[in-house]
């Protein structure tokens, strides 16, 4: 069985972001980088499936500069067999349609039985790439899965809807699934597996070989949102802060009435 999992390297969302000089994205300097959280669940599900079916080959794909190889190594240490690194130093300027086209171009002649992606990235958050890859490849797809069962080419998933409701959906491989938080418990790579991962294949492919489509949108501007008018910021010693807050709650709310 051939499985592909697509991941993205993103900044830690707790970072202090700055707008870059072009004014169209965040400044990459001084950020801590990690695997997109949703993709960790995708990698874990792909690895679990590989372990379930036995005879399989699991490729992890990531687009970006050489820096993303660090994140790919984590996926390899979690259990992916090989890495396909699409080398693109300008990845942040690509829009979802282009990113999906690059992945689809890579995947189109490789007959993957299943493709996993995160449901969205933490930085762009478009939620489009996974579904667009499926559309490019003509595969059925289900987004936002929180449960996955595979047996003999048949797949049963649960999609997360609003208010804690889930939709149960069945489909057949080949297919693409986008993964939601809580789908599984992503494993921590063990030291032996980290060592083994260093020997796994990690091939770089220039993005120029795979990008065949024009951008359909571009970023006009990136900026910090305005804070809510009148929002009060309290700072100081906790004892004093507690008194201040109680006073405010007495004046503005009826909770002590």
């Amino acid at each position, binding site marked *: 069985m051939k499985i592909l999992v697509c991941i993205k390297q993103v900044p830690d*969302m707790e970072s202090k*972001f700055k*707008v870059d000089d072009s004014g169209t994205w*965040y400044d990459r300097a001084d950020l801590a980088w990690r695997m997109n959280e949703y993709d960790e669940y995708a990698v874990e599900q792909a690895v679990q499936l590989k372990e379930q079916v036995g005879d399989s080959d699991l490729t992890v794909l990531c687009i970006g500069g050489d820096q993303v190889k660090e994140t790919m190594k984590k996926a390899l240490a979690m259990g992916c067999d090989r890495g396909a690194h699409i080398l693109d130093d300008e990845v942040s300027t690509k829009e979802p*349609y282009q990113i999906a086209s690059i992945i689809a171009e890579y995947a189109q002649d490789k007959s993957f039985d299943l493709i996993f992606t995160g449901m*969205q990235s*933490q930085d762009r*958050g*478009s*939620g*489009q790439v996974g*579904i*667009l890859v499926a*559309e490019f490849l003509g595969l*059925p797809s*289900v*987004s*936002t899965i929180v449960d996955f069962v595979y047996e003999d080419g048949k797949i049963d998933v649960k*999609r997360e*809807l*609003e*208010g*804690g*409701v*889930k*939709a*149960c*959906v*069945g*489909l057949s491989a080949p297919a693409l699934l986008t993964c939601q*938080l*809580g789908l599984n418990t992503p494993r921590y790579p063990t030291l032996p597996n980290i060592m083994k991962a260093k020997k796994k294949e990690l091939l770089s492919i220039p993005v120029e070989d795979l990008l065949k489509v024009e951008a*359909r*949108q*571009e*970023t*006009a*501007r*990136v*900026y*910090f*949102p305005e*804070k*809510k008018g009148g*929002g*009060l*910021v*309290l*700072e100081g010693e*906790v004892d004093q*802060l*507690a008194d201040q*807050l*109680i006073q*405010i*709650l007495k004046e*503005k*709310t*009826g*909770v002590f009435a």
Partner: protein
Amino acid sequence: MKLLLIAEYRDGQLLAGWSELLAFSREMGGESVFFLVGSEEHLPTCDEKLYLADSSACGEYNPDLHKKLIVDIVNKEQPDMVVFSHSSYGWDLAPRVAFALGASQVSEVVDVSDGVPVIPVCNSKLRREVKIKTDQAVVTLQAGAFGLQEEPSGTPTVEKISVDAAGRTTFTGYEQAESGGVDLAKASVIVSAGRGIGKPENVEMIAGLARALGGEYGASRPVVDSEWVEHNRQVGTTGQTVAPKLYVACGISGAIQHLAGMKKSEFIVAVNTDKDAPVGEVADVLVVADLKQFVPVLTEKIESL
């Protein structure tokens, strides 16, 4: 400008987001037409034209089928924009429709600036304006971002459409949220725990403050996913949408999905060490403090009132 607004229907109910689509359309100064896979018994109360596919013939959501129905209407009506809610229905279907139309898609629009859609990025810490380069566009709207001053009224002009397509996925049923336990929608005070509480033992501290305030405690998604708090206490788009008199967000940075579930609260207090956390956007008061020091002191003082 002409907009095709995609209303939603699930399990026998018209979902509430349709009026926000209309509000967006009015803000864009557009002429609008609705599309719904649903039932004549539950229609949006508006004066617009509505294309209706019968849900009893279509079954519950099927992406291949709904995509085909919408693309057929687009070909007939030639709208400039197809508009979805950024919901589990919208974010799943919109990219499929955009792909079929060769249109650009912009997800989770929160505002429009000089005709350019604005979306949140990086967990809502930044805003991005997206210039669309295709003639047709598909957008999804963040829940609560667009609202009407008054509830619309009227009866739409219905044109029924027939269904003859099948899909490659099969809907086999709904699994409802765990029932029983707490109903946060009824609580007048909610104190919620976010990732910032650090460890499961600290849930009790949050619950203690909630008790002191005569309310209930809730949690954000990461805390529920870590199984520190049960799912029926989750606040957010995939948990419960709440609107208490007082909402206290402890150690919650303010992911979009969480904000969407609590921003209608009457008075919002956030406790966070990060002065720039996105929760500050909606908070009436942001207490910049380590919640592990602040919450016990606050609880004790409230208890001694």
